[in-house]
């Protein structure tokens, strides 16, 4: 009985729990990456106790991979030595951690997965509890297999209607960020539901829990259904049967109803993710870089949208257009189906997989005074390099239209 998060936690706790309770729960998987693993190793060594279950630990190199400088290289070396020393079975360098976690079948409905990364919320797209924690707690979980949680209150976002052509989950989520604000869901579980969500494929669903982080949420959840189980069966090695369950007589702190039918494309403007405007208000603004990448919007379907819009055309010659597929699996599929060639013919720079330019370490850093339009999830000052650069967030389709003109452009005039 309860909200989706109360249901997930109750199943794990073996009793019915309510918002406000503090629980110590077993976690199914413990994720960390090159940015956060070194500190987890430090905590682990200081505690001085052995790893409880190696099978639950998943490590990634993605944030600055391949290493762009000596310090990053030292980090990678340290992590690889640790993997070897502890004989850890799950180690990846095949793309953005969250994407790889899903693709490799670690995320299943009802699971509890913690990650030393703020976008671990992403796993909620499959009805799992995913939450970001600091590295120290990751080290603690390696040793104990457990983590403390306060059962959060829930904000339900009920989405109805059908979006117009050229309007995607990203536009809807940016609109929600503008509506609720950067701290609109702090400490809360955000449940995304309604007929709009039910009709979305998994790649689009992922955007909502992924960006629930941007409104301060502890987790973002979507009830697992037949879309979820079909996705797990066809696109991941995860083994069923999968539990699909939803909220039961839930009590929500707040319900926000949004009809997406009339929503035009949205842009989150410099310098805050909740500084949201309908695209038409910023249309024409010149950009120096268009960046299509990250755990938010660099999945196969996103790249397909971009390729379809750029096919047979040329991007603005003065605009750097960079595409970083989220994972190698996506990259290979895009290559096999000719998308990479289309992008390159159009003048895009296609990089290796991973977080790329998202945290301003490599792969598309911005200079002072520059402006970028990206498919990322956050636009903090200095995120992509110079603190004097501006970052605008939008959908892959808006990114493609903007790539063609070098100015922020409504994708609806360019849909192929």
């Amino acid at each position, binding site marked *: 009985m309860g909200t989706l998060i109360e249901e997930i936690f109750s199943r794990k706790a073996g009793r019915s729990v309510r918002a406000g309770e*503090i629980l110590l729960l077993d976690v199914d998987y413990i994720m960390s990456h090159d940015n956060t693993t070194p500190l987890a190793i430090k905590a682990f060594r200081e505690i001085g106790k052995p790893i409880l279950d190696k099978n639950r630990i998943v490590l990634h190199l993605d944030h600055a991979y391949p290493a762009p400088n000596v310090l990053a290289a030292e980090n990678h070396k340290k992590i690889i030595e640790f993997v070897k020393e502890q004989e850890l079975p799950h180690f990846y360098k095949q793309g953005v951690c969250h994407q790889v976690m899903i693709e490799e079948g670690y995320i299943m409905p009802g699971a509890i997965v913690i990650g030393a990364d703020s976008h671990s919320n992403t796993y909620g797209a499959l009805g799992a509890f995913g939450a970001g*924690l*600091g590295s120290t707690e990751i080290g*603690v979980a390696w*040793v104990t297999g457990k983590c403390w949680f306060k059962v959060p209150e829930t904000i339900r976002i009920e989405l109805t209607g059908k979006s117009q052509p050229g309007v995607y989950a990203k536009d809807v989520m940016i609109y929600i960020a503008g509506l609720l604000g950067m701290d609109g869901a702090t400490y809360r579980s955000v449940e995304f539901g309604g007929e709009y969500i039910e009709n979305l494929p998994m790649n689009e669903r992922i955007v909502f829990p992924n960006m629930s982080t941007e409104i*301060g949420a502890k987790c973002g959840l979507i009830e697992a259904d037949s879309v979820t189980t079909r996705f797990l069966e066809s696109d991941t090695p995860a083994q069923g049967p999968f539990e699909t369950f939803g909220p039961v007589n839930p009590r929500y702190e707040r319900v926000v109803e949004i009809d997406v039918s009339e929503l035009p494309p949205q842009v989150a403007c410099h310098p805050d993710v909740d500084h949201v405007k309908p695209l038409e208000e910023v249309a024409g603004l010149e950009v120096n870089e268009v960046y299509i990448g990250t755990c938010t919007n660099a999945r196969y379907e996103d790249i397909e949208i971009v390729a379809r819009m750029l096919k047979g055309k040329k991007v603005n010659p003065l605009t750097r257009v960079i595409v970083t597929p989220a994972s190698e699996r996506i990259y290979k599929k895009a290559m096999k189906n000719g998308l990479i060639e289309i992008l390159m013919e159009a003048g895009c720079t296609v990089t290796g997989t991973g977080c790329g330019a998202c945290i301003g370490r490599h792969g598309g850093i911005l200079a002072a005074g520059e402006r970028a339009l990206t498919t990322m999830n956050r636009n903090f000052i*200095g995120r992509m390099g110079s603190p004097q650069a501006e970052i605008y967030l939008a959908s892959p389709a808006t990114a493609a239209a903007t790539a063609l003109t070098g100015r922020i452009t409504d994708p609806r005039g360019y849909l192929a």
Partner: protein
Amino acid sequence: MGKAWTFGENLNTDEIIPGRFNITIDPLELAKHVFCEIKPEYAKNVKSGDVIVGGQNFGCGSSREHAPIAIKGSQARCVIAPSYARIFFRNAINIGLPILECPEAVADIDEGNEVNVDLASGQITNITKGHTYKARALPDFVLKIAEAGGIVNFLKEHDIEELMMNAEG
């Protein structure tokens, strides 16, 4: 006793310590760059015992523990804010940076005020203005971790289950 350094609302982890410095985890090294883009004078002039006074949703953004570590490394005694971003809150507790929630103190304390904080009682005294404020009490198990000097130290001596026995008892 120390001086108050005030910051605005929604201060994010990139503003506390920009991502490009997060390649190290050395507290003193990180402290050299803490707040470098929004308050460059802080790192040069901060003294042991000074207090960070922040706005709502302090420490939002990435999960990087570098942010509370950088603040702790700068020798600041504690952070006072009306509310914290979730991961920052956990991280600060876990690494042993005391954080207090007190909207009244934040509304009244100005930059440079002399402030004294009694962590055990949550009593905050603004010596410059002669005002006192009471911070909200932290849950038992959080105090337990803070008393041990962070979760790592707690686990050296205890099993994790003891955390909850304490919390529920």
